[in-house]
Structures are given as structure tokens and as C-alpha cells.
């Protein structure tokens, strides 16, 4: 049983990660390598990637920390409202953010017209702004969850000793967050650097490595140059990965005391800050909602269904259905697979468990745009090429690590004596899993399912190589509309994806409410 399981895992990881990645590296020839890195576009792309990526990362982290701290540590009103709003950008593709920015701040944007601005959002400024919109929520939720877990007792002690709040933040909170800040910094940088959605739409002539790779490998199907750039794009992710495993998490204190609401003070500045952030986040989406029903945004705002109908006629409905199927398969298979690996790595002993853990967090290091190219090269002549199966498979492998870690976290909190009791009482392991473990981790399973689903619904990276022309995942229509600069249709598709993901989230929220927690 154990052996069969390990063999299956080995086969899945070999076919799903290592073989495609190997094919990508094997595609690199010395001449191709020299040619790519000597081209003038390459060096400027490296510089653009690093500079915009660093600035966007620093700003995202600062905003996210400020927002998370305000929501967690002050008695702010409407906390749940802000948490929901801050999560919304995670439900639309990255490229939609830059469409939103163009709709607001472009030469003919809504705000540009109102305020008669005369500046240019295209280029580095646009990339940075779009990347912040894309990365902020991720960093925000990381900081939120870490702040939630912080032990309150040192603050009580500090309060009693009369330490001012600002010193409490500098001397207690920041040191506590140090590790999280470091690993989040690398993770966010790599997330921004490997995303091509934002810079493709709004980068203007500022071409980043990911856009260069997209132009070469997806638009022009020059896989040789693409492989070289793909190999470079793996670097930031590998650094993030190493930063994470070389910087192990501190052990949770069992006696941690929640930080009580009584100690919190309310701050008008904090409220205004969160409100402005929310406005910035909601503005593009609201603009989309207006734009899709306006005859010719922003000049002629009379109501019409023309853009919606035209987008549907372009195949949006078929593609949406197709995405839905892919998302359900990815989420179903992905959830089962990541549960199995998390269970194995946390609840069995020995070498195999540690190897499984490393394998499971490894996919984090591979940008989708590189993984997808590896898949094209490796799977090209196999019968599953061009089918839904391969799209679902690449999604499962690409998004696997986060749900795995979610489940691992949950399982680590369940006493390992449960299995020992099962052994002594003669309860077969599958019954222990079915009757005791699964009911306990139900909410985490929902969360994992939603994570796979939402990401499969909005990804444009790996699938951009693998999708057949029709029907394709609906998110890929946005890159096509980017090429044609069809902003209204892109807005229709973005809103469709947002609504689909929202519907799923609401469904799970209701499910959670209906069945009370067993823990």
C-alpha cells in the first residue's frame, strides 16, 4: 500500500514536474543562450524586471503590513468588510488589473478625464501599480494570519510596564514578523517578476523578462529563446524557495494568548487608510461594470448589451463552460492529491515523509509561464496534448504547493495519538482517515478546493501554451483582447471570472455556516 502510493507519487512528480522542466532545460543550446542574453532586449528586460519588481514588492509589503496591522490590532469598524474587499483582487486575473488601470488612468481614462491629468500610465509606473494591485492581497493575507497567531502576553506585559504603542510595534511586532517579512518579500518579488499579465497590457515599451518570454514563446512560438528566458525566470522563485526553507518557522507557543480587543484602540487614520485602499481596489472593478454596459466608454455612456453580446459571440460562453470544467477537475483532483501528500508527510515517519514534503513544496519554484513551456515541449507528441486533461494536470501541479501547505498546517494540529489509538483499537487506517481525520479537516478541504478552483479559473500563464484555440480557458480571451486592445470585451470576461469565483466562495461560506465546526 505504502509502496504503491510512493510509486504513484514518484510517477506523478516525474511526469508532472521533472520531465517537463528537464525538457525545458534540454531545449537550451549554448548558441541559443548566447544569442538571447546578448540581445539588447534581454539586458533591458532584466533591468526592468528587477527595478519594477523591487519597487512594487516594497510598496505592496508596506501597504499590506499597514493594512493587516490596522485590521488586526486596532478596534477598527467594519473589519470584515475590509477583509472581503482586500480579497477581491485575488479573484481576477493579473492582466485584468492593468486593463482596470488603463480604464481609470489611461489617456482617455475615467479619472484622467475628470481631473484633466496629463500623465502616462504605460510603462514602469503602470507595471508597478498593476503589480501592487495583484500582489497586495496575497501579502495582506499572509500578514493577517501571522498577526492573528501572535501571542498576546508580551503585549500585556509591555502595557503593564508602560511601553508606548509605537515601541511595542517596533520592539515586539516587527521582530516577531521578521521571518514572515523576509520570506514574503521573496515570494512576492518572484510572483511579480514571473507574471506577464500586468506588464503585457500596460508595460508600453517597458518589456520585462516575462513579457519577453511571452512574446517569444507564446506569440511567436520561438521555444528555443523561450526556454532560455524561462530558465532565468526560475531564479527568483528558487531564491524565494531557499529563503523559505533556510529560514524555518518558529514553533507556535501552546500557551499563546489572543490579543484581546480591550487592548486595542480605534484610529481614525487607520479607518481612512483602509477605506482609501478599498476605493482603489474597487474602482477598476466598478469601472469594468460601467464599461461593459456603456455604448462607447467613456464618451457615450448610454446603456447597451452590445459588448456583452459581442463577447459571447466571440465564444465567451463556450470558453467559460470549458474553464468551469477545467477548474472543477483541477480542484477535485488537486484537493485529493494534496490531501494525500500532506497526510503522508505529516502523519507517517521517516525519510519518505521528508522527501514527500520537499517534493510537495518544490512546484512553488516554477513559474507557470516556464512550466507551461516545459509541458508543450515534453507532452507535445503524447495523446493527451491539447485535451482538457493536460490543462487540468498543469493546473494541479502549478498550484499544488499552497493547498498542500494549508492541509499540512491543519494536520499538524491534530494529535498524532489518533492514529496510535486506531492501531491499538484495531481500527483500519482508512477508517481513521474517513471517520476522524476528514471530518476534522473539512474546512481546510473546502479552502483548498476553492484555491485550486479560483486559480484554475483565472490563470493565464501555463495554460497559454497548452490550450487549444477553441474552446480555451476563458481567461485566455483577455490576452487575445490585449493584442487587439479590445478593452470592453476584456472587462466583460474579467467580470465573468470574478462573478464565477465569487459564486464559489459564497457557496463555501454558506456550507461552512450550515455545518458548525467540530473543533
Amino acid at each position, binding site marked *: 500500500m505504502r509502496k504503491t502510493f510512493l510509486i504513484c507519487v514518484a510517477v506523478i512528480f516525474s511526469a508532472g514536474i521533472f520531465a517537463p522542466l528537464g525538457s525545458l532545460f534540454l531545449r537550451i543550446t549554448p548558441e541559443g543562450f548566447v544569442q538571447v542574453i546578448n*540581445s*539588447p*532586449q534581454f539586458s533591458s528586460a532584466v533591468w526592468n524586471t528587477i527595478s519594477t519588481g523591487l519597487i512594487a514588492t516594497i510598496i505592496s509589503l508596506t501597504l499590506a503590513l499597514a493594512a493587516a496591522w490596522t485590521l488586526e490590532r486596532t478596534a477598527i469598524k467594519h473589519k470584515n468588510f475590509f477583509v472581503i474587499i482586500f480579497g477581491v483582487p485575488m479573484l481576477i486575473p493579473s492582466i485584468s488589473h492593468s486593463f482596470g488601470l*488603463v480604464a481609470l488612468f*489611461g*489617456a*482617455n481614462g475615467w479619472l484622467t478625464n475628470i481631473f484633466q491629468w*496629463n500623465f*502616462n500610465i*504605460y510603462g514602469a509606473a503602470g507595471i508597478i501599480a498593476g503589480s501592487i494591485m495583484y500582489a497586495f492581497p496575497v501579502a495582506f493575507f499572509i500578514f493577517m494570519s501571522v498577526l492573528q497567531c501572535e501571542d498576546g502576553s508580551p503585549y500585556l506585559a509591555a502595557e503593564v510596564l508602560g511601553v508606548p504603542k509605537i515601541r511595542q510595534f517596533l520592539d515586539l511586532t516587527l521582530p516577531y514578523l521578521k521571518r514572515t517579512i523576509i520570506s514574503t518579500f521573496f515570494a512576492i518579488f518572484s510572483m511579480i517578476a514571473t507574471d506577464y499579465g500586468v506588464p503585457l497590457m500596460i*508595460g*508600453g*515599451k517597458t*518589456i520585462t523578462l516575462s513579457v519577453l518570454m511571452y*512574446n517569444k514563446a507564446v*506569440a*511567436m*512560438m520561438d521555444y528555443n529563446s523561450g526556454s532560455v528566458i524561462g530558465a532565468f525566470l526560475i531564479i527568483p522563485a528558487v531564491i524565494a524557495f531557499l529563503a523559505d526553507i533556510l529560514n524555518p518557522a518558529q514553533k507556535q507557543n501552546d500557551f499563546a494568548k489572543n490579543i484581546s480587543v480591550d487592548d486595542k484602540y480605534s484610529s481614525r487614520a487607520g479607518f481612512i487608510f483602509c477605506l482609501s485602499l478599498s476605493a482603489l481596489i474597487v474602482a477598476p472593478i466598478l469601472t469594468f461594470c460601467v464599461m461593459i454596459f456603456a455604448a*462607447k*466608454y467613456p*464618451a457615450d455612456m448610454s446603456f447597451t448589451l452590445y459588448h456583452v453580446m*459581442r463577447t459571447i*459571440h*466571440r*465564444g465567451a460562453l463556450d470558453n467559460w*463552460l*470549458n474553464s468551469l*470544467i477545467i477548474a*472543477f*477537475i483541477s*480542484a*477535485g*483532483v488537486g*484537493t*485529493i492529491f494534496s490531501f494525500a501528500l500532506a497526510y503522508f508527510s505529516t502523519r507517517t515517519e521517516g525519510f519518505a515523509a521528508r522527501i514527500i514534503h520537499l517534493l510537495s513544496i518544490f512546484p512553488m519554484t516554477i513559474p507557470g509561464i516556464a512550466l507551461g513551456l516545459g509541458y508543450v515541449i515534453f507532452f*507535445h507528441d503524447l495523446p493527451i496534448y*491539447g*485535451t*482538457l486533461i493536460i490543462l487540468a494536470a498543469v493546473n494541479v501541479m502549478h498550484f499544488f504547493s499552497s493547498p498542500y501547505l494549508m492541509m499540512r498546517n491543519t494536520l499538524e494540529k491534530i494529535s498524532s495519538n489518533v492514529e496510535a489509538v486506531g492501531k491499538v483499537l484495531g481500527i483500519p487506517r482508512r477508517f481513521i482517515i474517513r471517520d476522524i481525520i*476528514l*471530518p476534522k479537516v*473539512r474546512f481546510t*478541504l*473546502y479552502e483548498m*478546493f476553492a484555491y485550486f478552483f479560483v486559480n484554475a479559473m483565472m490563470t493565464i500563464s501555463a495554460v497559454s501554451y497548452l490550450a*487549444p*484555440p*477553441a*474552446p480555451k480557458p476563458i481567461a485566455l480571451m483577455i490576452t*487575445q483582447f*490585449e*493584442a*487587439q*486592445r*479590445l*478593452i470592453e470585451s476584456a472587462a466583460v470576461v474579467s467580470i465573468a471570472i470574478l462573478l464565477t469565483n465569487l459564486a464559489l466562495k459564497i457557496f463555501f461560506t454558506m*456550507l461552512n455556516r450550515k*455545518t458548525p465546526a467540530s473543533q
Partner: protein
Amino acid sequence: MNLKRVFVAAICAAGLLISGCGGGTDSSAENKTVKIWTSGEDYRNEYYLTECQKKFPDYNITLEYMNTSNIAAKVLEEGDKADCDIILSEEYGYLEKCGDNLAELADFDFAPFLDDIVPAGHKYLPEYKNSGCIIINRAVLDKNNLPVPTSYQDLLDPRYKNLISMPSPASSGTGYMFLRQLVNEWGEDAAFDYFAKLTENILQYTSSGSGPVNALVQGEVAIGLGMTGQAVFEINQGVPLEIIFFAEGSPFSMYGNAILKKSYDRQAVRDVFNYLATDLCKGNNEKFFPDQIFKDFAPTIKNYPTNIHYGNMKNDTLTEKERLLKRWTFS
């Protein structure tokens, strides 16, 4: 239990849907499916698809957009496995490149077309002559207090910075024809020097040829190097764009239609192709791209420029194109 039911239901539903969608094993359905890849503009695709579906209600016809180089690359990579029967609106150069995968159109009539646009191997039928022009959005120019440019040199004026849009020659045939023409007119070095400077003023090289006109429609730029046909279409929709020409004249390139070798013997494919290549080709000529391609048919379109002075487009071959694009590093 609840959880298990949700997952089982989700997976069963997914499974059913896949088998439903992939259920192309039914041979009659397979025979009536016609898949078209096109690099055409959105509104023309709409026209072709609607008309085909009207004419052949029993057929399952799908039409999918990809850029010109992508279609060729995919056909070459995938060969007989390509999920496509008909290639529509593809540039001559690329069609030539895919020649080995295309059927010789022995059963179709080349006679009505002008002799000088009929390809030698008869692997593809002419569809239209795409000509380019300079398009302006006067409102945006006025907003920035800028004059209407009168020459390519004018476009280098720093006041036009970030107000010009052009398709990338690397991914768009329209983009390439501007490059080709200026190379022919001025010599290669002078042309590349020019684009190096023009890049300063360009907001973004779009990957599709239809990008600049759409950007003009949205008021994102003031000047576009784009397709005359698309600009006229938008003008006739009521969008206040204007078409101008510079002294060098209008660049142009030829586009055609083809059938993949593996699909040539299927009746449904032939029916659809024949309709596309005759009636709809005329319709396209009449509605969108009136540059003359038929010997005895010279349509006019409201607001379409007449007496176009075509530029020098010699050496418009694929090898030349690939050589020039190696030198192109601006997008």
C-alpha cells in the same frame, strides 16, 4: 459525509461534462464539424462566421483567432494533428511557409482573381489586399494642442511622445508591411534608424494589427499606423477617426485562404471553403477591404479612400521578412 458527497458530485459532474464535450466520436458529427483558424479582425470574423452558420445550419462551424505567425507556427508544429481544417485571412508569406501542410486547390477556381495576385503553387486562394494608412483621432490631437502630422519625419516630433500606436512587426503582418515599405523606400539602415527614433514616441507596440485602431477608438492614442479597412469600418460606425497618407504611399500585403491537406477530402470543409472563397470573399471585398482583387469587380465603400497610391512592396518574401525581423529589437 457531506463533504464526500460534494466532492463526488463535483467530480462526477466534471466527468460527465468532459465526456459530453469530448463526445466527438460520433462520426456524423465529426464530418459536419469545420474548424477555421483566422488572423482576421474581429468584426470580419463575426461576418464570416454568421454568414457561414446561416448558409450551413447543419454544420458545426467554429472560428478561432490567432495572429498570423501563430497560425503558421502551429500548423508547422502540429502538422496533420492541428485542430484546424481551414486557414482564413493568413498572410501570403506564412501560407507559403506552410505549403507542405496545405492541399493543392485543384477543384477551386482561380480565374476570377487578378493574375498578379494568384500564387504559383495554387495552395491558397487570394482573399484580400490589406493596405495600411495613418489614422488620427483629431479629438486627442486637439486635447494636446498638436497639429496633424504630414510626414513620417513629423512623427518623430517629441510632442507626439506616447501618442502613437503601431503593431509590432514581429507578431503582426500589418506592422511588418510598414517596416517593409520604409526599408524599400529609404534603404535598410535608414529605415531602422527611423524606427529606433519612432519607438521613443510609440506608446506600445501592439501584438495584433488591429490594436492601433482599437486604441484610437478608445482615445488612448492620437495617431496609429494601421489598417485602412479597419479604420474605415470604425469611421462608418460613427467613430470620429480620420485617414491620412504620407508621401511614401500606402503599404499593403496579400492575404489568402487555404485548406489543410488532411481535411481536403471532407465535403463539409469543401462546402464551407467554397462559400468563403467565392461569395463571402466578394462580400469581404465589398464591405471591408475594397482594394481590387477580382478582375471584374471593383467595389467602393463609403469613406474608403479612392485612388490609393500604393507604396513600394518589393521583396515581400518570407526569407526577407525573417532576416529583417532578426534585426528588429524594438518590441
